């Protein structure tokens, strides 16, 4: 059974879970290497910027009369195919990048006695299964993972909070605005929400703007709270670690219950699966819009999953490629393209495709 309609709550909960998985994979090196407390400010700024960046997307969706942005753009002629192609590329790229980051983490930090590529393949296999079952399945599973994140994250970070020392918190912008500026692109970049909204939002029922607002607020609160906790518990030590949130989790201990890093990694994996599954499903819709298959073609999921896995494996294996796929500056530009440029192009092409008829108001 394949489902195609989900509620706003499910959709944005799944996206929140995806964003959280990116957040807990926070890499201090990519965050600027300075005081992470300043990064909390850049996180809030980046989310505010995300809200503004998404305005063209919302406008295009509103004027598109219930069509997804790729559909709207394709109506404007052959040039419009660039939009679904771009979203397809962006989704595969961000999925592969997230997978690559996870594999880098596994290889560098956990050093398992089996191939970390195998873990990535397993993750992608589960995500592929979810995408094959449909968007509603992924949305519902996202809600379940959210509950697990609340419980598991609450346990890990609650136990870590015992180490919180306010003395570790230096005043904001104590070393200037450099760190805030450096980590701003990271928080802007590590999300594929723009592409997923552009492609999937017409399938979502309910008050979508409210859902997006909730997503922005929830993500902002969670991320900034997490950064404060990390700095408060680890102090300057946080900025010297590759994965400070992981370090915080691995130091958590209450009596005999300790070394919860495996639990932390499990939570990261859960979020990552939802992120990949959403991305894969969106890829499938893009393939259909490109005219590659009569309905949403199933083979496209296998193709997109293969591409993501390949990119993830290559990223983990090549430091040169990591400079491209994990670099927040380049990722931020891609995200801006997905959130602003592609929607603007879709809007222009869509209006042209309608023969400049007065746009239909969305009934949803």
């Amino acid at each position, binding site marked *: 059974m394949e489902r195609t309609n989900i509620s706003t709550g499910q959709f944005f909960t799944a996206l929140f879970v995806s964003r959280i998985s990116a957040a807990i994979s926070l890499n201090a090196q990519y965050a600027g290497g300075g005081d992470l407390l300043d990064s909390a400010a850049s996180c809030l700024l980046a989310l505010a910027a995300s809200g503004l960046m998404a305005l063209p997307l919302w406008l295009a969706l509103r004027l598109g009369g219930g069509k997804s942005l790729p559909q709207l753009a394709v109506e404007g002629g052959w040039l419009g195919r660039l939009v679904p192609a771009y979203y397809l590329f962006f989704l595969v790229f961000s999925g592969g990048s997230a997978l690559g980051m996870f594999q880098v983490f596994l290889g560098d930090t956990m050093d398992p006695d089996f191939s970390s590529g195998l*873990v990535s393949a*397993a993750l992608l296999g589960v995500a592929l299964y979810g995408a094959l079952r449909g968007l509603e*399945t992924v949305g519902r599973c996202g809600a379940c993972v959210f509950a697990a994140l609340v419980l598991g994250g609450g346990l890990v970070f609650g136990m870590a909070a015992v180490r919180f020392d306010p003395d570790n918190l230096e005043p904001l912008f104590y070393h200037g605005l450099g760190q805030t500026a450096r980590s701003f692109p990271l928080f802007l970049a590590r999300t594929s929400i723009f592409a997923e909204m552009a492609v999937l939002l017409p399938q979502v029922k309910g008050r979508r703007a409210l859902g997006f607002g909730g997503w922005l607020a929830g993500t902002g609160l969670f991320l900034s709270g997490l950064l404060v906790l990390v700095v408060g518990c680890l102090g300057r030590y946080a900025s010297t670690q590759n994965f400070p949130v992981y370090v915080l989790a691995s130091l958590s201990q209450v009596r005999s219950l300790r070394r919860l890093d495996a639990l932390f990694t*499990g939570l990261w994996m859960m979020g990552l699966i939802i992120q990949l599954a959403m991305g894969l499903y969106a890829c499938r819709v893009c393939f259909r819009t490109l005219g590659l298959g009569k309905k949403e073609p199933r083979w496209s999921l296998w193709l997109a999953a293969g591409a993501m896995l390949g990119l993830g494996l290559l990223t983990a294996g090549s430091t040169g490629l990591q400079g491209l796929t994990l670099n927040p500056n380049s990722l931020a530009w891609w995200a801006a393209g997905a959130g602003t440029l592609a929607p603007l192009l879709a809007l222009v092409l869509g209006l042209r495709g309608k023969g400049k008829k007065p746009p239909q108001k969305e009934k949803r």
Partner: protein
Amino acid sequence: MEKLSAQLDENKRYLQGQFENAMDFMMREMELAGTEAALFALDGLVSKQTVTLSILNPLMEAGDLPGQGEALLQAIERRVLGSVEQKRESRMDQLLLLLMSGFAVLCLDGCGEALVFGVQGFDTRGPDEPQNEVMQRGAKDGFTESYQNNISMIRRRMKTTALKFEKAQVGGQSHTPLALCYLEGVASPRILEQIRQRLKTYDLDTALGAGYLTGFLERGGVFSGVGVTERPDVVCGKIEEGRVAILMEGTPTAILVPFLFVENFQTLDDYLTRPFYGTFIRWLKYVAFFLSVLLPGLYVAIATHHPEMLPEALLLKIAESEAQTPFPVMAETLILYFLYEVLREAGLRAPRSLSATVSIVGGLVVGDTAVSAGLVSAPSLMVVALTAIAGYAVPRLYEPLALLRLAFLLAGNFLGVWGVTAGLVLLVMDLCGTDSFGVPLLSAASPFSRRLAFRDVFVRAGWQRLAHGGVRVQRMPGSQEIGE
């Protein structure tokens, strides 16, 4: 021969031909008011006493019967015989089916219709306490193999005209009768129609148990969207919420659809105790479920790949035990798990007089000796035993649990805790993507409804709350009838 012939000889020849070499076929020939007649029945299916007292004696003692043919049949039908279950039939396939269902058939020469009488006399088992759904406080009567008895058990508990028993039939050769039991105005017409359509797809020749039918009613997924019960009180509770029960002749279990995942954790006892205790028991079963699915996999994963997660004292104990055994943790757990399943199967299939011996030999001798001999470690044995016991807290899920344990065991061995996590998400994904007749299997947890989830999913609310709100299964969140 499609229709009954007006010639009695022709009918006799046909029926004798059909039942050639069938020693249970009985034919009693007689003469009624100068007309040749014959009574057919199958030995063992009819009560000979009832046939003699209610059919043969009145026929023989009847005085002035008119002429022949239709007039004679009408007189017998109206004045001579007064069986409760009595009707005319002319289609030969129906007559054969009725004969094989325990009816007696009276044919007259010169008449193209026969009179059939319900004189079933086969033995049926009385209602016993259900073996697989033991209740502490519930009623002690369970379904039997006679679906008519089962219907009466439900009717005795639900004295309403809205209670319907719709007749159907499956099995190309067995022609097994069944009844769709539901409350009119409560059950969803869409679900009823879906059930009828799926029953039409049943293309097996026989239907010898509920399991034959469930395969045609469910649609994929690890967990079934079709439930079974041996208890009439459970059926009454379920149909009150809009479900449909299917009662099948020859099987002491009723099939329930739609059947949600949470129902695997609900028992009648939950509702017969006080709410706080019912909630406690419910949570105990949820924990037992996760323990049963994940414990062996997590044990192997942690012991093999992440020993740092264990407290030092426990880690040392496990390491000490493992050092004395020749097999790795995975092999040890797998062997123990298979041994346990073999013992369980042997205990189930062995004659009752031997099952105690099997348990003693298996549990005490093999288990104790294996640990003493240093073949397996005590922690592994304990994990497998705990898993098995936890599985019995949710007996309805035993089948999927048995295989899931194995899958998680392998995932834990090859990919550590991460393999178990991936497996868990896959399982949740499967649960989220499966529905039972248009109702999501995981409803009301996902899609989430606070009103319903805190009524009878996460807590067992008090009767004041349960009695109000009129929950209908077809109106659960995410179901086809209302959407998300």
